[in-house]
């Protein structure tokens, strides 16, 4: 419980700073202006970022469907609860850390420190993979506690389904990260545009926050 509180506090602090940065940015450069009647293209949010926002809304709806099913079912008789194995706390810390390294990577990119950018991205990839491995180990522990697919319904089955889907989203992010690292090694990443890195970062923070939501929830 303390662990989660500390994590949340840390996270809250971190995002508060990001928000302040964003507001400052907004005041200085006005790049955040989402004026839908504005006629000048460059003032709008970059289309790729905007598209990702919509995609995130879409993914949220899917998990909202799953978690609301969970709520409805957990009120029915015959519901079986589970005790989460400790390893899921490890995976939580891992993915939180990976968000920080991702953010540092973006900073490095903007500062044109490509070597640093690449190594931070690689660290993020490793942490992302470590998260998935931790999740799989956690599933294994649950499995050994005799929480199986077959038979009667309960939190365990939902956990496999929901956390499994979340894990797939993380894996998708890992693949995208690897592509970006390889591209920058091949000198293909556009030095002048930080948009791909920022889009990547947005997605990565999103899967991170999504996991926190699922964790608190499940």
């Amino acid at each position, binding site marked *: 419980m303390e662990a989660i509180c500390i994590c949340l506090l840390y996270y809250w602090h971190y995002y508060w700073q990001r928000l302040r940065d964003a507001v400052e940015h907004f005041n200085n450069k006005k790049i955040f202006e989402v004026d839908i*009647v504005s006629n000048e293209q460059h003032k709008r949010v970059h289309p790729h970022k905007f598209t990702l926002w919509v995609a995130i809304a*879409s993914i949220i709806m899917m998990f909202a469907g799953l978690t609301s099913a969970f709520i409805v*079912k957990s009120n029915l008789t015959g519901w079986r609860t589970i005790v989460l194995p400790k390893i899921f706390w490890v995976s939580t810390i891992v993915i939180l850390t990976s968000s920080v390294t991702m953010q540092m990577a973006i900073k490095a990119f903007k500062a044109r420190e490509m070597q640093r950018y690449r190594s931070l991205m690689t660290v993020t990839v490793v942490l992302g993979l470590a998260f998935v491995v931790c999740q799989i180990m956690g599933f294994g522990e649950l499995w050994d506690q005799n929480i199986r697919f077959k038979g009667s319904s*309960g939190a365990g089955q939902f956990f496999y389904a929901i956390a499994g889907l979340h894990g797939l989203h993380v894996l998708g992010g890992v693949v995208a990260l690897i592509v970006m690292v390889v591209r920058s090694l091949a000198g293909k990443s556009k030095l002048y545009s930080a948009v791909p890195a920022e889009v990547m970062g947005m997605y990565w923070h999103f899967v991170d926050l999504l996991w926190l939501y699922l964790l608190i929830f499940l």
Partner: protein
Amino acid sequence: MLASLFIQTGPASGGWTIYPPLSALGQASEGSKAGMDYWIIGMALFIISQLLGGLNYIATVLNMRTKGMSMTRVPLTIWALLFTAILGVLSFPVLLSGVVLLMFDRHLGTSFYLSDIYIAGQALANEGGSAILFQHLFWFLGHPEVYIIILPTMGIVSEVMSVNARKPIFGYMAMVFSMFAICVLAFLVWAHHMFVTGLNPFLGSVFVLLTLLIAVPSAIKVFNWLTTLWRGNIRFTPAMLFAIGFVSLFISGGLTGIFLGNSTIDIHLHDTMFVIAHFHIVMGVSAFFGMFCGIYHWFPKMYGRYMNNTLGYIHFWVTLIGAYLIFWPMHYQGFAGMPRRYLDKSSWVSFSQFHGLDAMITVVTVLVFAVQLMFVFNYFYSMYKGRRVRSLNPWGATTLEWTTPIRPGHGNWDGEIPEVHRWAYDYGKDGRDFIPQTEPIGEKESSH
């Protein structure tokens, strides 16, 4: 899905709503075996493609409009497509989540939807699941889906009506806001498909209220279409006729929706021919009318040739009268309690009075179907042999697509992308028949 027609156990047989347990257990029927998996995989692919398409539409409309094209100048078709894409992007993922759980139940033996099942006297191990859960997830998409179908056609009809009545669309912002209201309400009414599942009657009454609320934006739209026609210089092209037919069918089908949206009446009408009549008029025929309307209207733009008008008129009148002849009697059958989805009703004496009516419906159906084949013929014939379009803007429309060359190349415009200076509905303004969107506002021009 098509491929499943050719596998040994045949295609999915759970109906279009694929309710578990029938869809969740391979032992339940032949059609619950591999055919069901094909159905689900096909559906998942469809959902993914629709999501990606929706993302593209939303980002394009909100982010990549041409210079001067503010959101209040965007034609209603584009507004409609935007709202459709938003609905799709937010509602399909919920169906996806439902289908993922269904796949778990099918192949891993989980019990999300299954409980206390006996097949051939054998009890299954599944416990604690709820089949109703699937219905909730399904209909959370299912209701927005009907607006995903009808909203684009509403946009098309608004556009074509304004062009062919030579009048600005009545209540442009009201049209936009009513579409917005429909989108919001679309997410709050799904349980009106579940009145007979043992839903809590109080909850049912909430859903009745929310459902009937949709009548308000729908009525605003109908009112605006009628006032757009009012005292217009109407050109009865096939496209315009289909637009007017759309409004007629939308009213007829919409009114019966009020019957079905009331839980008390729905308990009697549920699963009867009344539902068939309502749904096919409002979702089937009127949505098709909107699509036909768009095809006849934009055909010259698409292929540089006109479709044959005479065939268009025959197509319209036979389809309109035929549709009413087919579906109007079904309301009475439904009131009399005649169930849907039955192959043979002859063992009920009470329905024998409808035999003649059924025969008539069948004859008309064949006729109407033949006319649709004629439309398909008209389409492909006109593609190659139709009358050539000689002027850039044959309908005298204000919107941008009619400023492109008759046979547009890559990028649509030869030179720069045009700048927009006004909304899309300047018809009959200051004594001029129409003013294209690309024309700057004149010095002495009155405001609309």
